[in-house]
């Protein structure tokens, strides 16, 4: 049953071949069997999932109309609130935090009759590219458990890759959906900024954060997007665009599409990885796309911009974690001021502290113009460059990550770790929709993804292109050990 796509599961539930209870029990059993080894889940919502499944079976037996995602188990990254459940954000600071309200995305999913099955592991406060920054334990890569699953949404990617859930949510601030999707050999989608409500997502970099889905195929991405891409009154950056049919007319070719490829910017890539990417581009040509050479050399500044803006926004967003109103308060605090200092020291991990300090630095008096404002100006130049390219191209294609998944502990230099995101952060800086779709394997037999980007609100264009590529590439997405 776990080999079925979400789309197929729903169909079998609808036509009576499968009961929602059977589906929920099957995936809960898989989580029970594999999650300890994979570290993909922080909490399993068994009671909630079974209750929802029973309710669905009952409503179906009465002939009631059921939602778009009826009977599909979905894993939720543990930085999104489900009312009444714990949201840890992968941090010791929030081990006791019980969400008093639903994130809009979780509400939309439950309104469409999805079965929320568990909360997935992540780098603390979504800060990381390897899941090694989770305060609890790292999630592992189902293709090789000695390797990282990517980050920060590594738990969600590992869970979907190992078929512990057919769908999962992630959040992407600089590549945190697309890079783990690429590392784990599945599809990961970052919608246009504002397309999916951020209400109830614990904020990291508010001008960059975007919630999106993980799935084993593009059709499932289209399916879940129909449920979650909708306006939300609780998020002032939510785009007031009515729900769109992403499933309609998913194409199998790219005829008439002009796809930009930033060849010069890719020159410094590892030669083997570049060869593999070139083969992917040949395939796009074979599907009817016209490939255009575009200049994105400005992206060499994207990591520097990102680590100024994302940390600046994080330092203000994380100021709310003061140990006063919620979270874990240091038992050693004897006076009010101690609460802040001790709780933040004891509650935050090293990477989070580092980013808060860095964000405070780039915003502090005497440095703000040189760092924060400068980065915002270069961000404008990147946005303008993309706008100008999209006057001539429908899409841009590039790799997701310079390398496939690496071993735990292999990268200790902060800059090397941050450079993992070199091909992904610019979509966040410009608010663009971008997808990672399985494109092959490297010499260690680890998965590699291909990325498509399009102008804001052209989410359907991105999903369509990924679908056409996926149907012709036919890359296996199932790690043998979990079949």
């Amino acid at each position: 049953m776990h080999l079925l796509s979400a789309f197929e599961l729903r169909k079998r539930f609808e036509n009576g071949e499968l009961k929602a209870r059977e589906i929920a029990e099957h995936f809960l059993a898989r989580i029970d069997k594999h999650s300890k080894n994979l570290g993909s889940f922080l909490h399993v919502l068994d009671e909630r999932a079974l209750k929802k499944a029973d309710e669905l079976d009952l409503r179906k037996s009465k002939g009631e109309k059921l939602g778009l995602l009826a009977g599909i188990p979905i894993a939720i990254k543990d930085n999104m609130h489900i009312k009444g459940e714990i949201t840890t954000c992968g941090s010791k600071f929030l081990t006791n935090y019980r969400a008093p309200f639903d994130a809009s995305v979780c509400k939309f999913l439950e309104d469409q009759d999805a079965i929320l099955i568990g909360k997935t592991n992540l780098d603390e406060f979504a800060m990381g590219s390897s899941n090694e920054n989770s305060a609890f334990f790292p999630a592992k890569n189902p293709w090789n458990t000695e390797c990282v699953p990517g980050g920060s949404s590594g738990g969600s990617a590992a869970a979907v890759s190992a078929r512990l859930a057919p769908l999962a949510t992630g959040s992407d601030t600089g590549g945190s959906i697309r890079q783990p999707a690429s590392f784990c050999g599945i599809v990961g989608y970052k919608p246009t900024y504002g397309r999916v409500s951020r209400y109830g997502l614990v904020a990291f970099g508010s001008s960059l954060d975007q919630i999106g889905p993980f799935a084993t195929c593009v059709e499932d991405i289209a399916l879940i997007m129909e449920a979650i891409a909708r306006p939300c009154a609780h998020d002032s950056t939510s785009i007031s665009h009515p729900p769109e049919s992403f499933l309609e007319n998913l194409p199998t070719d790219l005829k008439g599409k002009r796809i930009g490829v930033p060849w010069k910017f890719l020159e410094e890539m590892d030669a083997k990885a570049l060869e593999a990417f070139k083969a992917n581009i040949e395939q796009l040509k074979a599907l009817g796309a016209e490939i255009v050479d575009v200049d994105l050399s400005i992206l060499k500044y994207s990591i520097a911009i990102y680590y100024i803006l994302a940390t600046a926004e994080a330092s203000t967003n994380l100021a709310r974690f003061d140990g006063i109103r919620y979270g874990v308060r240091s038992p050693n605090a004897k006076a009010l001021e101690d609460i802040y200092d001790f709780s933040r020291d004891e509650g935050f991990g090293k990477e989070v502290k580092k980013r808060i300090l860095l964000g405070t630095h780039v915003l502090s008096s005497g440095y703000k113009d040189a760092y924060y404002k400068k980065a915002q100006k270069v961000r404008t130049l990147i946005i303008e460059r993309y706008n100008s390219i999209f006057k001539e191209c429908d899409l841009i294609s590039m790799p997701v990550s310079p390398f496939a998944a690496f071993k735990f502990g292999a990268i200790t230099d902060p800059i090397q770790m941050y450079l993992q995101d070199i091909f992904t952060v610019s979509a966040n800086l410009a608010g663009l929709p971008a997808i990672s779709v399985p494109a092959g394997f490297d010499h260690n037999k680890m998965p590699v993804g291909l990325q498509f980007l399009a102008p804001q609100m052209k989410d359907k264009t991105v999903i369509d292109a990924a679908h056409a590529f996926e149907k012709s590439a036919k890359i296996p997405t199932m790690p043998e050990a979990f079949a």
Partner: protein
Amino acid sequence: MSEFNQENLNSLKKLARIKIPADEESEILSHMEKIVGYVNLLSEVDTDNVQIATHVSQNLNVLREDNIGELLPKETFLANAPDQIGGMIRTPPVLKEPE
């Protein structure tokens, strides 16, 4: 743009209200030196006459009626408070006890 040093770190710890244990401090300092060194890369970009990107979204000033919406019940909110008394959050005293 400039280099990053111990003095910067000491001041940031106060501004960000974060204590750092001694065994973490040298690694954090060395990483921050590297990162600040790296982001200095931006100084080579000519940004004269470039506006700052204050937002990426195309929809601006989304307004709504100023109505009272859902409110979080006090009990629900306080359920997450580390310490409470009489429907209010309790903290240790603002002033330290004289030693």
